[in-house]
């Protein structure tokens, strides 16, 4: 008689498809054959997991079509099976998987759209945080502004792409209307995703704004960040950018002085 650990190992391998027909020996065949009975489980498993990926990556699915998505998703499920008993982390490596797929090469921007959709997933489930403390900022003397360090809220992600991925994503939110023109050669986009209360806010950022965000997230004081941005030959309204970040909920809690 086969022991329980070995039975389970063989079933997982067989149901995910490594050894499709190796399980019949342990399953009763009667009105339905063992293969047919196992097929029901194989189908349920893939329908469930492909569905979980489709829920996370709806725009990717629209871009490649259902058949192509199914094929990519099934390959991913075999190569990167879910590693825990809940699904919030399942799909984390899907953007990289798509980037490596030969069959998806024609859609160069696909993996970046997937990265954006995964960023949205992470923002949706990220830890709640206290609002930014405006009053604390008012207590800081203007001479000390350069020493300010901001904390970035957990529900904030950004994606930098060589492609206009925010535009592509936006178009697919209302696929039945609007202007469907995307100039893929019009340059890349930096996209910010931030949770505001119960909803997600997403917008494109100018490159210097993204660079400022990255520096602040690393804990670089505002003055040093500005110096680095200026040497990078960036011309933009720093104060407006910072105020936007604060208004959008990008910053959390009390700023500190370096």
């Amino acid at each position: 008689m086969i022991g329980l650990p070995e039975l389970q190992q063989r079933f997982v391998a067989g149901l995910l498809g490594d050894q499709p027909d190796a399980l019949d020996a342990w399953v009763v065949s009667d009105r339905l054959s063992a293969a047919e009975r196992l097929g029901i489980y194989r189908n349920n498993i893939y329908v469930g997991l492909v569905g979980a990926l489709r829920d996370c990556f709806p725009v990717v699915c629209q871009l490649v079509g259902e058949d192509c998505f199914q094929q990519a998703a099934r390959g991913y499920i075999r190569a990167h099976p879910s590693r825990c008993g809940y699904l919030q982390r399942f799909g984390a490596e899907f953007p990289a998987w798509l980037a490596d797929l030969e069959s998806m090469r024609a859609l160069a921007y696909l993996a970046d759209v997937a990265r954006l959709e995964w960023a949205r997933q992470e923002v949706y489930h990220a830890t709640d945080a206290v609002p930014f403390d405006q009053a604390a900022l008012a207590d800081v003397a203007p001479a000390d502004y350069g020493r300010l360090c901001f904390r970035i809220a957990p529900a904030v992600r950004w994606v930098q792409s060589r492609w206009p991925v925010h535009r592509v994503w936006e178009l697919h939110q209302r696929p039945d209307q609007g202007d469907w023109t995307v100039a893929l050669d019009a340059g890349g986009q930096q996209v910010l995703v931030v949770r505001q209360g119960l909803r997600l806010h997403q917008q494109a950022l100018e490159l210097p704004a993204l660079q400022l965000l990255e520096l602040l997230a690393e804990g670089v004081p505002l003055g040093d960040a500005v110096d680095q941005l200026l040497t990078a030959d960036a011309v933009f309204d720093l104060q407006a950018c910072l105020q936007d970040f604060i208004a959008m909920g990008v910053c959390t809690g009390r700023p500190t002085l370096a």
Partner: protein
Amino acid sequence: MVAEGHLRTSGWRPAGLVPGIPVAAGIGLRHAHFDELTERLPSVAWLEVHGENFFAAGGPPLDYLRGVREHYPLSVHCVGLSLGSTDPLDTRHVQALAGVIEQFEPGLVSDHLCWSSAGGRHLHDLLPLPYTEEALAHVVARIEAVQEQLGCTILVENVSSYLRYKHSTIPEWEFIGAVAERSGCGILLDVNNIYVSARNHGFDPLDYVQGVPAAAVGEIHLAGHAVNRIGTREVYIDDHGDRVAESVWSLYGQTLEQLGPRPVLVEWDTRLPALDTLLAEAVRAQSYLNDRAA
């Protein structure tokens, strides 16, 4: 007399702190109904959610559930503990569940008598165990470990199944009864699952209902199923995608006769209907309880 469904606590949670689940009909609450339920606060005795959907660190689902919890008794039903798996118990999963229990104070906590992972790979499907002495000893030890870590007892649900193992030696109803007796867990008796399995394997569903220890049953589930065909042969699929079938209502009535009244819950997960349709199913489930009380 049957007391309210409640967690039997084992020491470090003060008894009486946990609000009980009434012996009445509730509904499974899914994300698509959160907005409407929060706005309307319809009359329904209690709600059940999938525990794993609230394992995230933050975000809208937790926020909604905090709001809902103020108005309804809550049961937390899990799908991912993989109680029958021979992998090491995922104590982080149990810890995350403990966090949900601490935050939302459910009246009942449950998962399934099944396995869904091996070698660290999770299938997110509920596979039946072989019903052997080996599997019995294993799953009893796992349930004891989970209950120990949670500090409360859980209910364990019978799953729908599409296959049986050649080396099973114990009828499923005796197996789940022995699991409850040895581990101290309760049984969540899913009447639709009994019916689906009975049709797929050719046993009498009443044998199952009469075979489980009535005192251990702490909750009943109802749901819809689909009847598919492979060639000319019917396969019953537990898809939670329709109204409860008439044959299952009938089995539910017989189950109440056999066990007495219990908290009963209607689940609906695929092709989700309007909230009112689901609520109407709960009203019908409640009418069976009322008939027995009359």
